[in-house]
């Protein structure tokens, strides 16, 4: 099904070696029926995460980054969510799985670090206890042993004086320390996959750098797969191996992270890069993508990006408006895929940048 160039088949088997696929998401759609209508938060999403590699999922707010990754851990309310497609975590199919299955894989196979560490830690429980609880949920050990493990983890994520800190409440931590504690919580059961959902958005630049370094270091140490969700392309440039760009619930471009950022081949990715001030800091005017993202209640027909796309004229007929582009390898580039009708996107976009 996937057309990634160097597919390492790992269907149905456990991932052990660096490069093995831990998470295989296939044609995943997540929709929420609401009063106003059905919110199609994620549509036909396909991607893989591999051991030892960092996959960045980028996209604007509301593009479905969190929703898709929460689906992996089964954190949506099953009564209010329609999930279709397939999510294979370490060979286990999770779409339609029992709550008990999810309970088993959470924290052991896949763990998640949430965006806002302030609200994601329980305000009434001590930090050490919260981490120890996750350990005890999957290991039959005494409280003391689990607490010791929690202290080790706090130490590991670089919290000074972990013994004392374990005995404190989250509100006694600073923002950066809370996020470290969240990471400790995520890693306590040695998961094969760590999903970090915008782990640094709420943090200051200097602290953000600390946390990103930490995640990178830890990944090297544990060799696990990391999915880094972010909207900051500069962060991706410095930390990720692979990238998946999402727009309005769909993946629109994926491939090697550096390559995509250096040479975007989908107009949306291109637009994003162009609108970054640090990318074009000396230009008097930024090249902004016009318009705003579409409503998920009522996606435009054809390519979701078409109302904002400057290049749709270059596609013959009105295919952009009528036909949803399928994933295809980017012409002329290896290890890259896009969803775009442009015949020669690379050349088109390069030309456009030259014009400016």
């Amino acid at each position, binding site marked *: 099904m996937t057309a990634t160039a160097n597919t390492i088949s790992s269907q149905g088997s456990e991932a052990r070696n660096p490069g093995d696929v831990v998470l295989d998401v296939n044609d995943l759609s997540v929709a929420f029926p609401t009063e106003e209508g059905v919110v199609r938060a994620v549509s036909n999403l396909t991607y893989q995460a591999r051991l030892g590699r960092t996959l960045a999922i980028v996209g*604007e*707010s509301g593009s479905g980054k969190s929703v898709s990754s929460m689906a992996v851990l089964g954190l949506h309310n099953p009564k209010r969510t329609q999930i279709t497609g397939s999510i294979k975590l370490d060979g286990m199919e999770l779409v339609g799985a029992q709550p008990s299955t999810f309970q088993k894989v959470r924290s052991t196979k896949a763990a998640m670090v949430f965006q806002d560490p302030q609200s994601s830690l329980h305000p009434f429980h001590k930090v050490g206890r919260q981490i120890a609880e996750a350990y005890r949920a999957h290991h039959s050990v005494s409280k003391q042993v689990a607490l010791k493990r929690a202290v080790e983890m706090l130490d590991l994520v670089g919290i000074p004086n972990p013994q004392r800190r374990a005995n404190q409440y989250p509100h006694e931590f*600073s*923002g*950066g*320390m809370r996020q470290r504690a969240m990471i400790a919580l995520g890693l306590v059961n040695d998961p094969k996959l760590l999903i970090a959902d915008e782990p640094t958005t709420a943090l*200051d*630049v*200097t*602290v*953000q*750098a*600390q946390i*990103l*370094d930490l995640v990178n270091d830890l990944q090297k140490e544990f060799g696990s797969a990391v999915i880094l969700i972010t*909207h*900051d*392309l*500069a*962060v*991706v*440039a*410095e*930390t990720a191996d692979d990238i998946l760009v999402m727009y309005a619930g769909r993946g629109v471009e994926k491939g090697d*992270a*550096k*390559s*995509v*950022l*250096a040479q975007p081949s989908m107009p949306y990715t291109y*637009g*994003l*890069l*162009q*609108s*970054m*001030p*640090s*990318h074009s*800091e*000396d230009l*008097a*005017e*930024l*090249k*902004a*993508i*016009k318009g*705003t*993202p579409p409503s998920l209640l009522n996606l435009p027909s054809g390519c979701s990006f078409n109302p904002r796309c400057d290049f749709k004229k270059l596609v013959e007929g009105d295919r952009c408006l009528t036909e949803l582009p399928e994933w295809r390898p980017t012409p002329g580039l290896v290890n890259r895929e896009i969803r775009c009708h442009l015949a020669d996107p690379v050349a088109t976009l390069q030309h456009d940048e030259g014009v400016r």
Partner: protein
Amino acid sequence: MSETLLKVTDLERHFPFREVQGLKMVKANVKAVDGISFTVKQGQTLGLVGESGCGKSTTSRLVTRLDEPTGGTIEFEGRDITHLKEHQLRGIRRDVQMIFQDPYSSLNPRHTVGSILSTPLHVHGLHKGKEKARVQELLELVGLNPEHINRYPSEFSGGQRQRIGIARALAVEPKLIVADEPVSALDVSIQAQVMNLLAKLRNELDLAFIFVAHDLGVVRHFCDQVAVMYLGKIVEYGDKRKIYDAPEHPYTQALLSAAPDINVARGVAPKERIRLVGDVPSPIDPPSGCRFRTRCWKAQEICATQEPALVAATAEESTRAFREGGVHLQACHFPEVKTSLTAEVPA
């Protein structure tokens, strides 16, 4: 040289609070802003950067006189407005306006766009009888459809709301706009739209800006001068180019090195990162001497005892500044002085 619009000297804002320590009631202060000085000239943009809690918003609120300083002076067009009463501030309210960070909470959800934009007109008695036309004009100016005058804020996206906020600030035809993180809440693609709009307006209307942001890229793009704040103090102040290309204060250096760089993807070697340890100390009880010393790798004894002044790093620099006009001040006992500006990134 354009004339000085705003002159801030030794501005100070302490928030007093009481606390019981043992059996005593102790009075303490949150020193949110603790003696800062800067000037803004007509048509110029001053950027204010720094980590969370360093006093950026407090400064904005003081300058717009939404809050009253506990020390120092604020002069606007030569007039001391530091302690003016609300009714005396009417004139200032026309000349100094504010754009807020949160496009959701900065618009009253119960008012239509028309009423949000006409309120300043009514308050200041501007465009009497032609308010509606003016509102439509304003909408057009910020790139919104003038027919949407009867819509409520909830019907607009974040970027559009921010435009409404900008239009509101422009309604009174101010001379100085204080923008407190106007694009931080916006997505990259929208952020660019708004930045472009602000730049366009600045040029067309000859506005001065105080522009607060924590995104160094945004500040670099938009500002002429930059002030770097740390714990209620300005630690480095000067022309954008100087600050970015030849930072002298260790904190500025750390800040700049911490920001990830997209150009890494294009093969530019990653900057060597200065890793700061720990967090920003509490403004209630800031470190003695130099406030940055607790996280500084250059810290020595003198840093704890003596507070460094905001001065030019070297005599040459001082003369250069005098000669060329571009100031560059910093507050460190051991500034790093680069003589040549070679680290420029090719555009």
